[in-house]
């Protein structure tokens, strides 16, 4: 049991976890304990640390992990809004292909309440867990919006009349449909990405390049 090329990797718990662990296993990492023990956070013997997907860029940027896996949605949300504004300083090395989701703008089925709000009130209210992605998208498409940040179950917000639309990530659209919401716009397609700490990328170049070459050699689309 030893880390891949002496590298520490930040692995996200949650939706990307299973595919990421499969990927590491296919590189020869001993992942048995990682799969079975969901309370442990630090797996020193195999160079893995586990955390929420949104924390992965934080640990990688600080150098607490050399590499990390997280969704493009997380990276976009934490990116600099404007040049020089200081987004996360991590390198995005590879599109891992799995965890495919789409960031969408959705509203209640029937006549679009967001359009009516824009027409009559000049501003649409949008609930989201991704306030920066939502604000950027609406600004880029020339619409005035009031962004309401919520932490969970975004679908509830338009159903209660608090907002006219939501910006959220959807894989199959099932949750949206069950809540009588329809996709109005697709904003961006998001997949899992391999990111690196800038200093590790230089000082552990050989190890990282070797791991990347192995990843590129795997069948397309990632594991599972």
């Amino acid at each position, binding site marked *: 049991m030893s880390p891949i090329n002496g590298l520490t990797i930040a692995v996200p718990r949650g939706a990307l976890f299973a595919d990421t662990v499969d990927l590491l296993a296919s590189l020869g990492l001993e992942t048995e304990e990682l799969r079975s023990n969901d309370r442990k956070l630090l797996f020193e013997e195999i160079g893995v640390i586990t955390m929420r997907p949104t924390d992965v860029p934080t640990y990688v940027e600080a150098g607490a992990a050399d590499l990390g896996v997280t969704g493009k949605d997380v990276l976009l949300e934490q990116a600099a809004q404007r040049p020089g504004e200081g987004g996360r300083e991590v390198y995005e090395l590879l599109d891992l292909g799995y965890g495919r989701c789409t960031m969408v703008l959705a509203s209640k089925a029937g006549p679009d309440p967001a359009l009516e709000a824009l027409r009559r009130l000049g501003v649409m209210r949008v609930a989201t867990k991704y306030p920066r992605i939502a604000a950027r998208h609406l600004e880029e498409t020339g619409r005035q919006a009031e962004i309401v940040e919520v932490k969970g179950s975004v679908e509830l917000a338009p159903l209660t009349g608090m907002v006219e639309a939501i910006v959220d990530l959807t894989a199959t659209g099932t949750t949206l449909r069950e809540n009588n919401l329809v996709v109005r716009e697709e904003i961006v397609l998001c997949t899992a990405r391999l990111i690196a700490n800038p200093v*590790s990328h230089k000082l552990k170049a050989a190890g990282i390049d070797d791991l990347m070459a192995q990843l590129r050699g795997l069948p397309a689309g990632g594991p599972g």
Partner: protein
Amino acid sequence: MIHPIPSGTRDVLPEETREVRAITDTLRGVFERHGYGEIYTPALEYESVLARADMAEARPAYRVFDESGAVLVLRSDMTVPIARVVATRYGGTEPPMRFCYFAHCYRGVRPQRGQPRELLQAGIELIGSPAPDGTAEALTVLCHALDATGLKDYRIGLGDASLFPALMASLRVPEAARAGLLETLVLRDFVGLQEALVESGLSGEALELLVEVPQRRGGPEVLADLPAPAHDAVMGLRRVHELLEAAVAERVIFDLGLVRNIGYYTGAVFDVYDPALGAPIGGGGRYDELLARFGRSLPAVGFALGVDRLHMALAGEERGTGALLARPGAGEARSTPAA
């Protein structure tokens, strides 16, 4: 009573000041020994004067008005003020000129670990000494200075700001797309770079080169088998490397993806890395066209170290618990230079 200070700034108390002072005294000694005279410039400058430099992301973030309505800015680096001093006060002086500084600079960053809005920089500017000799001298002073502070495991990433633009031009990347692609590479978003290149209509070998070359870093072997358009930049890097004394040369990692988001860099660019810190300690490069914008056309090169980051790296090395150290595989990073 607790009275707040602005986000991204801090007070430095005697115990820390003593340690920081020891570092800056050491750096000053090395700079002076190499013939670099220390200068001070005002923290406030006219916006219209600094705007002569194309500072892109390092553009000054804080502005005030004086009593006559003129817009003043807090300097965001010392390179541009020194370019102003050279044009204004040394108009007729025979080059080369050597200056060093220890100065607070101000940036509008979002405060996070090691990224303050007010930062103490220590650096040199070598004015009127072209590549490769000037670049080699700057790298030598940099290594001597870091050695003198006792920093052990640092490496210098060395690249050339003209390499990727030259590649793009020769591989027929549409001109309108070039600035955006460079911006993507500054962020080292290699996935985004590939996507944007495909969108710009590139394919085949050209696409592969534009994605592969900027990911190359390591020893002199990464300079081999490069396409013809990269030839000038690579020859420049080789010549600098040949001029370096052995102890300096072995610190160098060639990094062909190193580009700057500060617009005035023209040729060689470099960053300082240490395994005890997750972010660069400092960096520098050539800015052969900056002085001309202030009316005195001279080639120049310089570097700036973040004193607080250097302090953190020294403390991390001392404890053996820096960012990349207290982890599995850390032994490898400490003992072997990146190959």
